């Protein structure tokens, strides 16, 4: 009987195709949104285990005194420290391109972030050049920057034109760093009149410490915070993983919304599919009357209607998955990994998402066809035969 249901798919090929395409689009969207969620969560998993971040206790956006850096460095278990200041620069030639611009102390920074790989000569050149900067290979490729290029950024937080020279292009040996960032000398920033005017002279955005034992990150974090507990500016320290997780926590409402949207799309698809199935059932009322006349039972009609809907939705789901892999992994995924690597270090479809999508596609058909199937099963033979065939 399922064979008959499958053959029925060829009855109105255009409708079947469009329905399958509808399911396909819903599944691609579902897979994409689910992958956003899983990739975002996965970012925390890629965090270095031997790094502890320290920020202002109140908020990320409030700075810490630079003098804290040495005090953090003196805490037992801390091997090295680095500072970073969010600069908020923008390339006027590529106004719409977003990339992170951070003021750092080059040697300390590369020591703490040892997964950032810069060729030795470029590294030395950066150390020597006060206006030098290193950029990620993905960003350099996107904006067409080469070593030695002079670039001017506009400060969105610290106004004015800021001149830089590209000293090096870095790559990442692990997925814990973004390949689209722009790092320049803290000294260049700190001595600028804009930093003084903004009250940021000798202030840093946050401190990152490399510790000797990843298992002690909680204790060391606590030790750092205790040290500054009685000061005017208190700190909040946590492992890099916890920091990433807390960042995810900050955007949990967005993630929840993404989660809900992915389900709403499927719910809409249920309604559309249900309408299509109901239309088919209405058109075949007379035919169902004939089937009932020759001895088929109401349950057989239920099987016909349900199997047809489930086959269409499952095929749509398979099609959706086939499209999802190149679309999500080769298209959107590559783009996000290159351009927003810090948030989406590994944008790949989780096998569980693929399985869930396929099961949901089949369930979609089942739920959508439930009411039309029930309607078909309740048809009175004589009434159904009376309807125009």
């Amino acid at each position, binding site marked *: 009987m399922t064979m*008959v249901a499958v053959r*029925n798919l060829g*009855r109105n090929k255009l409708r079947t195709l469009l329905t399958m395409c509808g399911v396909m689009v819903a599944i691609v969207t579902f897979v994409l949104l689910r992958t956003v969620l899983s990739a975002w969560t996965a970012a925390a998993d890629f965090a270095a285990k031997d790094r502890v971040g320290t920020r202002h206790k109140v908020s990320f956006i409030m700075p810490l005194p630079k003098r804290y850096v040495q005090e953090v460095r003196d805490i037992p278990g801390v091997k090295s420290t680095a500072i970073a200041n969010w600069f908020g620069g923008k390339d006027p030639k590529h106004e719409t391109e977003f990339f992170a611009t951070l003021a750092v102390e080059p040697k300390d920074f590369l020591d703490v972030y040892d997964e950032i790989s810069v060729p030795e000569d470029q590294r030395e050149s950066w150390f020597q050049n006060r206006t030098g900067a290193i950029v990620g290979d993905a960003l350099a490729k996107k904006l067409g920057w080469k070593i030695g290029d002079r670039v001017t950024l506009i400060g969105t937080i610290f106004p004015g034109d800021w001149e830089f020279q590209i000293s090096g292009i870095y790559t990442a040996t692990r997925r814990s760093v973004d390949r689209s960032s722009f790092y320049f000398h803290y000294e260049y920033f700190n001595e600028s009149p804009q930093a003084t005017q903004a009250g940021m002279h000798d202030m840093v955005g946050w401190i990152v410490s490399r510790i000797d034992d990843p298992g002690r990150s909680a204790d060391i974090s606590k030790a750092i915070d205790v040290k500054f507990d009685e000061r005017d500016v208190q700190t909040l320290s946590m492992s890099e993983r916890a920091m990433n997780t807390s960042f995810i926590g900050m955007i949990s409402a967005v993630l929840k919304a993404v989660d809900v949207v992915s389900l709403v799309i499927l719910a809409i698809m249920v309604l559309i599919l249900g309408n299509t199935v109901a239309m088919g059932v209405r058109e075949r009322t007379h035919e169902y009357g004939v089937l009932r006349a020759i*001895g088929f*039972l109401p349950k057989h009609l239920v099987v016909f209607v349900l199997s047809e809907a489930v086959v269409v939705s499952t095929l749509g789901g398979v099609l959706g998955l086939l499209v999802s892999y190149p679309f999500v992994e080769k298209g959107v995924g590559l783009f996000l990994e290159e351009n927003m690597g810090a948030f989406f270090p590994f944008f790949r479809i989780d096998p569980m998402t693929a399985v869930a999508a396929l099961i949901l596609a089949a369930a979609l058909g089942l739920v959508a066809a439930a009411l039309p199937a029930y309607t078909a099963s309740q048809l009175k033979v004589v009434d159904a035969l009376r309807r125009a065939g």
Partner: protein
Amino acid sequence: MSGETSTTGELAAKGSANGTIVEAIKVRKTYLRGKEELAVLQDLDLTVHEGAFEALMGPSGSGKSTLLNLIAGLDRPSSGQIRVAGVDVGSLPERSRAKWRAANIGFIFQTYNMMPVLTALENVELPLLLANLSSKERRERAKTALEVVGLSERMQHYPRELSGGQEQRVAIARAIVTDPRLIVADEPTGDLDRKSADDVLKLLERLNTEFNKTIIMVTHDPAAAERAKKVHHLDKGALL
């Protein structure tokens, strides 16, 4: 067509003890139109013997299709009794009636009612999906039925590739594939040209004479009715 698939042999034997296969006793059928009760059949009595080929004629609304539906177990009488092969069809619950129809009744409709996505052979095989047969057995029986109606060359054709007359012959093959003792035909030539109608009627005659099928046919066509051995005229729900 040997009768191997009939599952009601015992009942049939009982029904045919006196040669009667269909017996309508004081059958009344009413419908509600709004609050008004409309009597379509009024205390109708009818007896059809085994091996008969009988036609029901009458103007539209005379109740002939309603009577045919009651005999075929598609509907229940409001009062009275319809006995087919000894079985009080109206008293059977819905599920049992469906099974009874599958085993005992062959249906021929005016508009053929083939499933467009199935070939002629698959359409004929359809009622056998309800029987406990292997797919090979089903296929063999469907082929035999198509041979009987002279369409063995068209087995793999889809309904859209067949003429109206050929489609109706496939419908007849579908009606006889379960080897029912009673065939009910509702305007079987209504949609056909004269030549095709004649072919279909010849086929029905052959099923009646060669295979001893009892046939009850509703028709408006006097030429079709002439081919029946007996003609009943209905008017306003009563036999004349």
